C-alpha cells in the first residue's frame, strides 16, 4: 500500500517538511546558495514539489517551496514514486542504486544534484521528527 493516500497528504508531509527547512540555518542556506530550481515529480499519488532557490525568496527564508504544477523551468528534475521520496528523506535510499534500478530518474547536471547531498544529511533526522510533530508518527520507518 502506498504511504500517502492522496496528493494533499504528500504536500502535508513532504511539502510541509520542505517548508520547515526553508529557514534552516545550515541546510536552508546551502540549498539557497545553489541557485537552482529543483523539481520533484512524484507518482502514486501524482504530486509535484518545486524547490525554487533561483528567484528571490520570501523574507526570512533561503528559498521557496511550491506545491503542485508551476511554470518554473527546473534545472534539475527528479522523478520517483512518493514512497521512494518518503524513504529517501529517512536516508534509506541509496541514490546511485535507485537510479540504476530505475526507481529514480534524474534530469539535469548530475554534479549539481550531488553537490546538495552532503548538505541535506540533517534532513534524515529532521523528517521523522517533523512527522511525529504533525501527528503522522505512523509513517515513521
Amino acid at each position: 500500500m502506498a504511504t500517502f493516500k492522496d496528493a494533499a497528504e504528500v504536500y502535508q508531509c513532504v511539502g510541509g517538511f520542505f517548508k520547515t527547512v526553508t529557514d534552516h540555518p545550515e541546510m536552508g542556506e546551502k540549498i539557497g546558495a545553489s541557485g537552482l530550481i529543483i523539481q520533484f515529480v512524484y507518482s502514486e499519488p501524482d504530486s509535484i514539489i518545486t524547490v525554487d532557490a533561483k528567484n528571490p525568496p520570501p523574507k526570512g527564508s533561503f528559498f521557496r517551496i511550491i506545491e503542485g504544477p508551476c511554470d518554473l523551468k527546473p534545472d534539475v528534475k527528479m522523478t520517483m514514486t512518493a514512497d521512494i521520496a518518503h524513504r529517501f528523506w529517512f536516508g534509506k535510499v541509496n541514490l546511485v542504486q535507485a537510479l540504476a534500478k530505475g526507481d529514480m530518474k534524474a534530469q539535469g547536471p548530475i554534479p549539481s544534484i550531488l553537490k546538495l547531498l552532503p548538505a541535506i544529511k540533517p534532513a534524515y533526522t529532521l523528517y521523522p521528527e517533523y512527522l511525529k510533530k504533525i501527528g503522522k508518527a505512523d509513517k515513521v520507518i
Partner: protein
Amino acid sequence: MLPEYFDYHIRSRVVAGPGVASALGNELRRFERKRAFIVTDKVVGQLGFLDRVKKSLADAELDLVGVFDEVPPNSEFGVVMRGAAACRAARGDILIAIGGGSVIDTAKGMNVVLSLGGDYIDYQGFGLIERQLGPLVAIPTTAGTGSEVTAYAVIRDDATKSKQTIVSNHLAADLAVLDPELTLSLPPSLTASTGLDALTHAVEAYLSTNWRPISDGIALHACGIIVRWLPVAVDDGANLEARYEMLVAACEAGMAFSSAMVGCVHALAHTLGGLYEVPHGLANAVLLAPGMEYNLPVAEARLADLARAFGLKPTGDQARDARAAIDFVRGLLPRVKLPTRLRDLKVPEGELALVAETACLDAAIYTNPREAVAEELLEVLKKVY
C-alpha cells in the same frame, strides 16, 4: 557478503581478432540497414583504417553515405550536434565509430540525438533514455576507455568548462569490434596513458562502493593482463600479441566499471579535463596511486586483492600487501615512461583547491569507497604536485 541488490548489464556483442575490422560483412548484415555513417577523427582518417572498414561495408552491401571526421580529442556538446546534423542530412541509418574514447562517446551522443530528437543537453542526467537507440558499431583504436561497451558518454560542455556524463544502458555499442591491428601505430606515450586509463577503470571498479561480484572478476582479470602487457606494448608497439591483450583487457575494464562505476581518481581526472583539458589517461596515470592511497584506510582488503591480481606474492600481512599494490602502480609509471607529478601536466599550482572542490561534485566521487572531502583531496593533490 554480496550486495543486498545489484544489477549487471552488458548489451554489446564483442568480436575480436587481428584483421577483424575488415571482415565484418556477416556481422553488419545482421543489422539489416542500408546507409552507414562513419564517425571518426582526422588522425584515423589519415591512417587508412577507413579502407579496412569500407571493405566490411561492401561485403555487407552497406552504402557509406557520409564521414564525420571532426571529432577533437576532448569532444564537446556542439560537436555532437554537428555530427548528428551531418548524419541526418546524409540519411545515415547505422553509425560506425572508429577512434578513441572521444570519437566513440561523440557517436553515442549523436545516436541519442538522432534516435530521440531534441538537444544533447536535454539528456544530461541518469536513466533518461528509456528506449533502444539506433544501431551503433564501435571500433576502438586505443586500448583505454572501453567506451565501446560502457553505459556512459562523457562529453565536455564548453559553456561550463566541465565534463558532463550521460548514463544509460542503451548507450553501449551494439557491436564492439576489437581489432588489435588498428592499435599497432599508437605511439608509446599514448599507448601508456590510455593503458593507464584502462587500469584505473579496473582498479576503481574493484574498489567502488558499487562493486558487484561479476564486475569484480572481470576487473581483477583485466588488472593482471594490463600490468603484464602494457610495458611490452609500450616498448614494442608492433607486438601484436601485446596489443591484442591490451585491447581486450581495456574492454574488460570497461565492462567492469560500466556497472560498478569509478571513484575519486576519475572525479579528479574529469575535473582536470574540464578545467585545463588535461588528457584523461595522463590525469588518471598520475592520480591512480595517490587515489588508492587515499582509499587505503577503508579499502585495505580490496587493495591487497589487487596486489595479488598484479602478480605480487602475498606476504600474509594484508596491510603490507595493500601498500605493495599502491607502490606497484607508482612504479609502473616510470616503467612506461609516464609523468608522475601534476606539475608535469601543466595544472596551475594555485588552483589545486578549486580542483579538489570541483572533483567533490563529480558524479564519479559518489562511489568512491572513502567519503571524499575537499580539504583531504587537496592534500592528496599537493602531495603529488
